[in-house]
């Protein structure tokens, strides 16, 4: 683990990773050199906010405002951490 607390982290997709909306299937995708990841539910919206400027805290606040009642504070940080672990977010 790094010393930075997870909420200070400003996630951004790794250079190899592309977030793209697939109009044919109406799905958000992560495109990588050898794979396509189909994002479920609101995952694409979350990754879409990972611009290297917003911190995890900003992302959580913004989502909480847009989706009142959704468990964003509990779900979003571990989701982002999982993507970081896979090397898809930095």
């Amino acid at each position: 683990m790094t010393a930075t607390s997870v909420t200070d982290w400003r996630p951004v997709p790794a250079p190899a990773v592309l977030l793209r909306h697939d109009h044919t299937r109406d799905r958000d995708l992560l495109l990588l050199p050898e794979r396509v990841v189909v994002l479920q539910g609101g995952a694409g919206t979350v990754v879409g906010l990972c611009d290297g400027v917003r911190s995890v805290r900003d992302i959580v606040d913004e989502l909480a405002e847009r989706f009142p009642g959704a468990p964003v504070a509990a779900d979003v940080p571990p989701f982002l951490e999982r993507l970081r672990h896979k090397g898809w977010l930095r």
Partner: protein
Amino acid sequence: MTLTDPAAPAAPAPAPARPWALLAELTHACPLHCGYCSNPLELTRRSHELTAEQWTDVMGQAGEFGVVHTHLSGGEPLLRRDLERIVAAAEAAGVYTQLVTSGVGLDGKRLSALTAAGLRSVQLSVQHADPRASDRIAGRRSFGEKERAAALVRAAGLPLGLNVVLHHENLDAVDAVVELGLSWSVDRIELANAQFYGWGLLNRAALLATRDQLARARDAVERWRERLTPDGPELVWVVPDYFDGVAKPCMGGWGAISLTVAPDGTVLPCPAAASLPDLDPPNIRDRSLAWIWDHSPAFSRYRGTDWMADPCRTCSRREEDHGGCRCQAYALTGDAARTDPACRLSPDHGLVRALAEDSADERPAVRQRAPGRPEKARRLP
């Protein structure tokens, strides 16, 4: 089952799920002469290749139809002077591009032009970790250029994969290959046991590994898997299906997730399918990609499970491995609709076992890939 009135119009069959990936074989021409090449023996001449305009149209249709990923391959795609235009067309169509290259001809200028056009990633082939052996297998001095290409791709910040086709001559060098990948800081190392199509099938007796060799290589891979850290390169082992007794889920199923466009515009469910004599594959010059995928007889031929005979027809694995590879069934039995002989349940499995067990001490020389008929192909020096 209910009986239906034979005169009643049948309900239209649901359209097959759309493809995700396109293998674009831009040219069969190549500066290397690897004897394991899966290109057909009858290589398409440069004058018969699709133009950049035609490829632009292919990419547009592909993106529109749901393709999100393309491998720009060959032969050596860098031999196309208009490769940048094709990359730009894919990017404009929303299709993620990966260049599959030998690295020969990839200098800094070319790479910047490709990156500017939207190239996303590179897969680089190397034939061996030892420069002399790599050059020998490739049939040309090329290791130095590969090394330079790897450094350029790294410096450009593009993801880089290293692909090594494994066979009798280099299977004992797996450790050195992984070390090479580490020293070139690649993101992924693909250890691809040779598959026997095209030139590779012609050279099978020379290329085929021995069981001992494979066991040692597998152990080496296992040791690396334990040693490599999560931020180290991804290590991929493409199984040697002749030895495992298990059919590979070839292409993820016939006409299921991916399609190939050959240099002359022939559209195929997989690159090797050009070898099937009565397939009559469609051409993108004559038909739309959508029609080809949804309606062409070639793509419907072995789609799903209806075409299967026993043992696949009733096998619990039929949805997972799709009965293996049609081209391999044809190459080994003369009938593409039979169970892939690589499967131990196939009545023809003895054919594969005989080849795998016959670890010949006397091997023929590799016939190196070259244009023209293979009879004229160059021999190893």
